[in-house]
């Protein structure tokens, strides 16, 4: 008796241990994927930073001995373009020659030029050219050292006074500088953003969301951690922002893996991000084949697939009837079997095949859909 109980105990113990080991294996599999994809993405961003010199000539910093005084003289001739002035970073688009000239200075030179701009009575007379000149200087400073530009914005009352009577750092330029910082160092950008928490009106909610989107492109796990700490009401919009902000499949893949890891215990939030990520199916610019390939590469679990049933069923709504059946075949193969899946497929293919019962039956058989049963379910549902 005791021996039997002992054997049973060992078996139960082994079963439990086996299950734990299985879960651990799955977890490790996911984690091993993340650094792989993450490393690819980081390498891509690194390449992005390094290859700018390929065609960057006019805006590359030169060592031709240009002085801040010379550049200041050129700024004095700034004129308002036809159609009105753009303020904020957009000013660089309207004053490209001035921008080009300022970018020839090193950090020290830019600092000197800024002092000249603040004290310039000539520029003050040609409103708003003093602000525009200061903005161009700050863009150049951020290009050279985002940290220096951030410190300048938050600590230099003279600069802020040009833009606001209450000395609040300019939201547009703060966002620009922090986003620039996030390109090189997302964590530093985040820390800097947090330094502004005690400065009222420094960054509005939209700017914070955009910055988190920028951080997420570089380090999705970091952005997810930050969003997890936000109040419920803010989380949804931030999750959507970072999902929409992903520009390449590689970035989307890394976000997917990060979400799988970080939001494992929060299915509602996981669903939200995954749905937004899968919104590309409504996007006719991405070919269906590319989107399918990307989805298949993710190795989604059945539960994850079910979370994105809604956006994925758009695959059945887009395109013309010729590709509809092909899309339905893919959808049926990709999604785990369920009445909901079959119902969605039937809803879409009935307009195309409903007038040909034989084709309809044949197609349903091919997809493994029990047409009669589904119709009964539909009737009972009605």
């Amino acid at each position, binding site marked *: *008796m*005791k*021996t*039997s109980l002992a*054997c049973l105990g*060992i078996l139960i*113990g*082994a079963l439990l241990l*086996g299950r734990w*080991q*299985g879960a651990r*294996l799955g977890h*490790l*599999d996911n*984690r*091993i994927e993340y*650094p*792989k994809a993450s*490393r*690819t993405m*980081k*390498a*891509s961003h*690194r*390449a*992005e930073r*390094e*290859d*700018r010199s*390929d*065609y*960057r*000539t*006019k*805006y*590359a910093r030169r060592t031709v001995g240009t002085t801040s005084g010379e550049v200041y003289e050129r700024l004095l001739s700034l004129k308002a373009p036809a159609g009105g002035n753009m303020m904020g*970073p957009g000013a*660089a*688009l309207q004053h*490209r020659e001035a921008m080009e000239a300022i*970018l020839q200075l090193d950090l020290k030179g830019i600092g000197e030029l800024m002092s000249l701009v603040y004290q310039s009575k000539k520029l003050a007379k040609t409103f708003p050219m003093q602000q525009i000149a200061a903005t161009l200087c700050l*863009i*150049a400073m951020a*290009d050279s050292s985002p940290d220096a530009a951030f410190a300048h914005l938050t600590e230099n009352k003279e600069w802020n006074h040009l833009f606001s009577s209450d000395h609040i750092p300019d939201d547009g330029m703060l*966002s*620009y500088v922090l*986003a620039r910082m*996030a*390109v090189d160092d997302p964590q530093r950008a985040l820390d800097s953003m947090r330094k502004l928490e005690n400065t009222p009106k420094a960054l509005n909610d939209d700017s914070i969301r*955009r910055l988190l989107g*920028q951080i997420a492109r570089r380090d999705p796990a970091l952005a997810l951690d930050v969003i997890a700490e936000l109040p419920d009401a803010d989380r949804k919009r931030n999750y959507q922002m970072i999902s929409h902000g992903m*520009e*390449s*499949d590689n970035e989307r893949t890394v976000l997917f893996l990060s979400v799988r890891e970080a939001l494992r215990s929060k299915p509602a939030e996981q669903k939200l991000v995954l749905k937004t990520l899968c919104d590309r199916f409504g996007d*006719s*610019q991405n070919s269906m084949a*590319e989107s399918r390939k990307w989805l298949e590469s993710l190795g989604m679990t059945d539960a994850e697939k079910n979370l994105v049933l809604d956006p994925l069923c758009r695959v059945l709504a*887009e*395109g*013309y009837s010729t590709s509809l059946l092909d899309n339905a075949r893919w959808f049926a193969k990709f999604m785990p079997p369920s009445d909901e899946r079959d119902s969605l497929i039937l809803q879409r293919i009935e307009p195309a095949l409903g007038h040909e019962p034989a084709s309809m039956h044949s197609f349903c058989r091919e997809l493994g859909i029990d047409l009669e049963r589904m119709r009964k379910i539909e009737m009972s549902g009605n």
Partner: protein
Amino acid sequence: MLPPDEDLLNAFVKSHDEQAFRGLAERYSGLIFHTALRTLGDRTLAEDVAQRVLGVLAKKASHVARGNSPLPAWLHRTTILEAKSARRMESRYHRKKEAIMRAPADSPASDDPAWKDALPHLDAAIDTLPESDRQVLLLHFVNELTFPEIAARLGKSAAAVQKQSRRALEKLQAILGRRGVALSLAILTAGLTTEMAKAGPVLLIPALSTLGKTTTSVLVVKKTTVAALGTTLLLCGIPLARQQASISKLESRLRMATAAPLESRTPSAARGTKSPSLLERLARDLNSKGFDMPRYLSAVDHIAGLSDQEVVAFVKETISSSMSKTEREAIFAQLFQVLFERDVESCLSTLLDVVPADYIGGSQSAGDLLENGVRTLSEHDGVKALAWFREHLETIRSIRKSRSFPAEYWENKMRVALAYGLVFSDPSAAVEVLRPLPIQELTSELSQLVRSREPTLRKDATGFIQVARQLFPEKESHETVAELVGVNLAANDKFQSVDVLLEKYEFTPAEIDAILEKTGKWHLEPASREADGMEKAISEFRAWLESRKTDDIDRLVGETLGETVLSWSRTGEPVYQAMLRCRELGLGDDAILGLLETAGFSLGKEKSGPLAAMLSNPEAAREVLLKIQHGNAR
């Protein structure tokens, strides 16, 4: 003399002294074995039980050493419990019992038949004795201690122990008597003396002595048990071990993956990453406007320096690339921006010739480019624009936005874009171009055209008026012409600017009515948040109409107020409050009738009733209320 039990037990507990345990085992193996044997009647089982009891002793030695109960009493009780447990498991008990009883080697020393009958019940009977009585009997008969020795151990007098021993024997006699075994005290004493002092089987001692070496719970196990447990462990252990090996492998890979320094790899060597092409880098940099302006400007400048052929080559590469939509849209827009700035017509032709129709249909930037391009072209040279449109009409018709948009979506868009310039340069051609569009879409598009071309219309609206008159039936024509009010209201004095408009062009009476009504609406709506503001606005509007010597002023004011109510539901209450004082504002019955006929059903019965009651003609009041009621019922 052998050391006392307590010393041996403590020696075993403290230092796992094998000799000590062996001493205890030798001392009590007889008691244990024979107690078990008597209880079970099976020598094999009794040996098992004896081994188990010694195992329990080894396991619980520290507990026994701490307890108050003398060792023999504890052993006797434990043996009984283990024996009972063994008996429950062994159904052979009764069969074996007889065999035991028949075995001469195991018979009691006494030959008395009554003693033989008593043996199976003896230990159970001893076990039912009170603890102190049992202790005295076992110390006397098992340990063979004299009464003074027992007295010394228990802290009593020898006489008291002797008396207690006798009482215990009497109790035992009575217990056995109740079980149907009648024994005299003499036989009982003689039997106990023989039975309890028996030595255990010699074979047991070495086996038991080894127990002292280990104190684990699996000290004593049968070979079969070992085999069963071993097999189970083996069966479970192998897959678990293999799985654990996989986990260790993955953990090691993860450590390597996370620890590998990024710097040790060149970007292009990173797994799955190939060096981006120039086009991809340009596209990516064009998306960096929000965070890296110098980089964005570099990309813009680089594209601006490309030849037309290079731009077209990049366009083709963009379409076939696997870039994301955001990247594709960015580069696509910039490439065509360059062509657009060089030559609009050539840019548009390139767009339609090089870019597939389905790509244009799904691209925001391509769509915007097409629309802006045709507008610009028609604005600069309407004839050229019309010729280009006719030449490319088939291609334009092949562009589909998506299934949810009508097939002619892009064709209509292009027609409206053409009218953007043609309305001014060639109104007849504009009418011809716009005629295929549905009336509803046309009214909306021409309203938008008015808003987007305000400066030009302010200079000359003749073409626009001509297009509206030729394109629409009467009502829509008047309302479209009246849109011009919006253009002229940009001036500071609204009424004065409309006066200028009315003097500048020859409008039909119906068009003038529509313009006056539109002017009234533009004037009344902003003031209609409260009754006071509304009253003032009505008075101003009425005064302006009087200055223009307009006919049917009251009706015009009433209808305009009705339109105001309909166009903005929040104005209902202020208009109603103002109209309750219509007599003070100088408004007559026609104003009330105009309001009720236009917006009576929207004001509702509660507001319409009091207003109708103000009419001087009760018949007209009844009639208008009936109309409202009928309209509401419908």
